[in-house]
């Protein structure tokens, strides 16, 4: 069971299924970055009419940052369709985020032509998927000694301890077992003692209790002789603190980097978002916690427009049902404050809504009967978290004890005799492979269902009324049958993307405007350019317009939205 999650052999992965030319993959394991590339290439090769595979650019260490576009190009170029953007593993150690992206890509392609709603979705909308943003650290998660606590950030050297040296004191695999685990030293004046419920576990002593251990943190030595251990490991530029809205310098937001979007990885993502104004919703996948987070990300962030909150709330509640146990939360009140993160950047700079999805939950490791109470403490978001001894029972009964490395003596050059052991890295922030398929499918389908709510517009000429001679009153309507408006309230209010254009051609336009009440015939006429009305269409609603025109032939009425695509209809004035 060693290196359980590290499945380097893609041969076992991309077996072609019996169904003709349709690749299938094992979704009960994790793919390293080479395998990720192969999965993407396999999908693209199998579905060339549905996919386009592009490298957005090179990472800090020179790896490709792959982006897969999925849509039926025969029904229109992806840039003309409403689109959903999803990326994963901007924190390189949060590896299953990549699998959610890969699974979604595979699912969409595999079910195209089989599942009607998926087929309709890819005919009218597009997905932009970046399975791994932090390709360097995720690659190293598989190739280097493994730790759940290393590899979150960009591979950019940073002087974490402000001593003038860069990354000079990193955790290390002292015992050479390929894992970077915990160290403890026996110490009657320490802070922890052995858990009487499970001898593998240490718990903090309470007043009156005798300590047995001092916890020393991750495996490592004091490399630079400054009296600290592991205080300046690789990185630390946290790319999900480097996005360029409400970005704050590192003394305010740890790990934000020298300036916004400093790592190449996030810069290419930001440029991609800017260059694709058809993106109407975003997901960034992380672990852990089982959460769908939205902004505001901090108290100093601007509020989300109430109209957009309604959409967020509706989608978020559906997400909670789609993925049982997950919670939809406002980031800074439900979790903690951050500055410069992805979803707020999307919402405040581009005006589309976005979630940060936190995959996996501590409760995945619950070991409880139907009527057992949660064992964790109350009062925090971790209240449902199982105690460590409960997690050990899970480990014993469902993983035959493989999740935990027994404490083993080790002669440390500075601490003397210590013990090394603890939870294996993959058992902390990720799940064993057998738990993956359900998690991947539910979260992927939440994305797919969300994409189904992207604006879906049609246009019709409701009536043409002759007012005498060649004078006509033309009424047209755009209907949006989906759950999202064509433009978010924030996009409209702050002009973050162009407004939708309701236009008429083929006749001389004398007047025009948006119909305020189509029963009473109230029209808000515009003084200028009436043939080119700037507007938007609400969710599951309609936008009516009216023109007074002079003409006698064919007119073309068109509704063109940056995030809804363009539709048009013709009518005859006769």
């Amino acid at each position: 069971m060693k290196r359980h999650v590290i499945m380097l052999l893609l041969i076992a992965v991309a077996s072609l299924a019996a169904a003709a030319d349709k690749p299938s993959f094992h979704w009960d394991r994790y793919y390293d970055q080479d395998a990720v590339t192969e999965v993407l290439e396999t999908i693209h090769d199998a579905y060339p009419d549905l996919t386009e595979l592009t490298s957005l650019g090179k990472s800090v260490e020179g790896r490709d940052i792959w982006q897969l576009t999925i849509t039926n190009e025969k029904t229109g170029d992806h840039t003309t369709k409403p689109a959903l953007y999803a990326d994963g593993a901007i924190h390189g150690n949060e590896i299953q985020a990549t699998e959610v992206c890969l699974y979604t890509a595979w699912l969409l392609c595999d079910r195209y032509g089989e599942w009607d709603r998926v087929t309709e979705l890819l005919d009218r909308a597009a997905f932009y998927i970046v399975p791994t943003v932090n390709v360097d650290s995720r690659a190293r998660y598989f190739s280097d000694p493994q730790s759940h606590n290393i590899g979150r950030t960009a591979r950019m050297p940073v002087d974490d301890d402000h001593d003038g040296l860069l990354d000079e004191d990193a955790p290390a695999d002292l015992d050479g077992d390929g894992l970077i685990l915990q160290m403890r030293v026996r110490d009657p004046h320490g802070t922890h003692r052995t858990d009487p419920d499970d001898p593998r576990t240490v718990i903090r002593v309470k007043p009156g209790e005798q300590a047995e251990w001092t916890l020393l943190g991750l495996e490592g030595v004091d490399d630079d002789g400054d009296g600290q251990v592991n205080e300046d490991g690789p990185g630390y530029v946290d790319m999900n603190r480097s996005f360029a809205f409400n970005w704050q310098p590192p003394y305010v937001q740890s790990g934000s980097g020298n300036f916004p979007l400093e790592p190449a990885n996030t810069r290419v993502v930001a440029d991609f978002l800017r260059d694709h104004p058809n993106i109407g919703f975003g997901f960034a996948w992380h672990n852990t916690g089982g959460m769908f987070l939205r902004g505001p990300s901090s108290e100093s962030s601007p509020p989300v427009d109430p109209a957009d909150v309604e959409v967020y709330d509706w989608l978020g509640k559906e997400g909670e049902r789609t993925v049982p146990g997950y919670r939809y939360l406002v980031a800074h009140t439900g979790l903690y404050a951050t500055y410069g993160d992805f979803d707020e950047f999307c919402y405040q700079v581009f005006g589309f809504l976005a979630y940060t999805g936190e995959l996996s939950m501590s409760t995945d490791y619950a070991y409880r009967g139907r009527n057992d109470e949660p064992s964790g403490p109350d009062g925090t978001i971790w209240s449902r978290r199982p105690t460590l001894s409960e997690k050990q029972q899970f480990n014993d009964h469902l993983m035959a004890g493989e999740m935990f490395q027994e404490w083993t003596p080790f002669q440390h050059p500075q601490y003397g005799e210590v013990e090394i052991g603890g939870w294996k890295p993959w058992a902390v922030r990720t799940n064993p492979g057998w738990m993956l398929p359900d998690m991947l499918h539910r979260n992927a389908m939440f994305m797919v269902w969300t994409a189904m709510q992207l604006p879906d517009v049609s246009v019709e000429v409701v009536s043409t009324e002759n007012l005498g001679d060649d004078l006509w009153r033309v009424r047209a309507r755009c209907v949006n049958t989906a759950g999202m408006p064509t433009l978010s309230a924030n996009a409209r209010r702050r002009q973050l993307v162009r407004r939708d254009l309701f236009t008429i051609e083929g006749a001389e336009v004398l007047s025009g405007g948006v119909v305020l009440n189509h029963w009473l015939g109230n029209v808000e006429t515009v003084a200028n350019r009436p043939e080119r009305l700037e507007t938007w269409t609400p969710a599951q609603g309609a936008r009516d317009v009216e023109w007074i025109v002079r003409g006698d032939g064919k007119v073309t009425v068109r509704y063109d939205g940056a995030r809804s695509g363009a539709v048009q209809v013709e009518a005859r004035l006769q």
Partner: protein
Amino acid sequence: MPRIADRRFVATVAVLAALASTAPAQSWPDGKELAGRLQDLARLDRAELHEIGRSAGDQKLRLLEIAPRDGSEQGPAILVLANTEGDLPLASLAATELAAEILAAPDDDPAGTVRWYVLPSASPDGLDRAFARPRAAGGFNATAVDEDADGLEGEDPPDDLDGDGLITWMLVEDPAGTWALTSDGLPVNADPARDLPGRYRREIEGHDDDGDGRYNEDPAGGVEIARNFPHAFKPWTDRGGRWPGDQPETRAILEWCFAHPDIAMILVLGESNWLNTVPEPAPDPDPDKLVTVPWRLARELGFEPGAEYSLQSVLDAADDHGARANLTPARVRALLHLEPLTAPQKGDLGWWSALSEGYHGFLDDHGLADPRLEARSPGRGSPASWAYFQFGVPSVALDLWTLPAPADSSAETTADSTVTAPAPDRELALLKERTETSGHGGWRAWSSVTLPDGTVAMVGGPEPGARHTPAAYAAETRARALLPFLLDLPDWLPRLSLDALRTEDRGEGVVAVTATVRNDGRLPYPTDMGTVNRRPAPVTVTLDGAEPLQDPLRRVIPQVPAGGAVTLTWLVRAQKADDLEVTATAPSLGTVTVKGGQR
């Protein structure tokens, strides 16, 4: 013996006299001419020209590097950023001339003791606009902006209706307008109570090209680089960029700066000034202020989540945990949502005030203290505020010209002989008066035009850029006269030195070693702000040739005060005192070493 600055002033005047035939007095050099001058300078010893990036319009960002006279590869260095506003040819010219003066300075001149990085035109697209015909206000780059979010870019630019080559104001007759003209022809906000009813709508000179009922609402786009830096960036503006650092010019500058840790000071030549008036410091946080500790921090400090505590008690608790959790006071304040800082640290006001006094003294000594309108302080997203608050080095923001105020000005005169900024109508009045009395230009008389729809409008008013860029001959002398002050800036920089090692024999090979690290400059290293944001890297001191008994051989000094010293002592085991060697180093200051010692 005159001060060096005085001697150099004399020399500068002489240099100017020699250059008089080549220096254009009647027009500003454009981008092409500046590039040529930089290339000429790059042929001189110690100079090297770099292309640090490209503008949005694909023009080169040319940076001239000038090495110190002693050939040292070490810091400190001064970065000169000029004309991030784009439409300030005076600033670009001054930076270029500064580079020439640095290269021509005498051997014993402070200017030759440091490395200089000079970027005379930080927004070459913007500089081009200052020479465009017709010429409009604003030195924006070539990034396309859809200002009115209608899906079109640049579809309604201004138009030169009166054919004078300038885009000025346009007062469109409108009964609902909120502007009026005084009997003197000055535009003012309408004030019916003072018999000034609204008669005009103020627009920029031009047509409604796209027929949307608005005038010039979507010009050729562009972003002002001076608003695109990350400190206190203001989102959702037409001219500041979509996000901080999104413009290629800004990104190139940021990347250059962080790739050159020897930069110990940034001089920003532009429209703003941080020497005229020293900014107010950040107020001390009220230690008794009650704060709610976020649950994550509360858990770390052992506090009750959601409960209120005094700020001081939280800071004290964090101090207890500091070594483990890296919880600096600034970080704690950030977690309590009391950051970021937007006013200088109180501890930095000493050197800031001294620098300001030095500046005013220079103006007084050189006859440059004539009353002028006060330049604005660096604003949100400006390079100068970024340099201090985020890059962590002293930031010297200097404008080169503002409108002269009349000697008998009724405006309030401050102690530094400048006058407070007037309301816009006063500035307009000064421009108009100056044009009419001295012929310096800056104001266009109103002329009547008829718009295509028959509407009558008045075109005229302030010329674009008139409040910061006069005719070349009127400002060049003043700007050049300021150069000696800038050439003396290296004298202010922190300088690292080590006293001779002191050793004390404690018997059996045990030695107490004492090293004193000095900062011989007039600025601390780093600034107080630098200690908050932990940039630039601190001075580290390493003792070699000994076995430590207690303290690590490599130590960090968080700050070395200006003109001060920090003393470190080690108890070590050493074979010979002569083997001992202490090295002090910092990327911005270089490295110094002292060997041996009297045992």
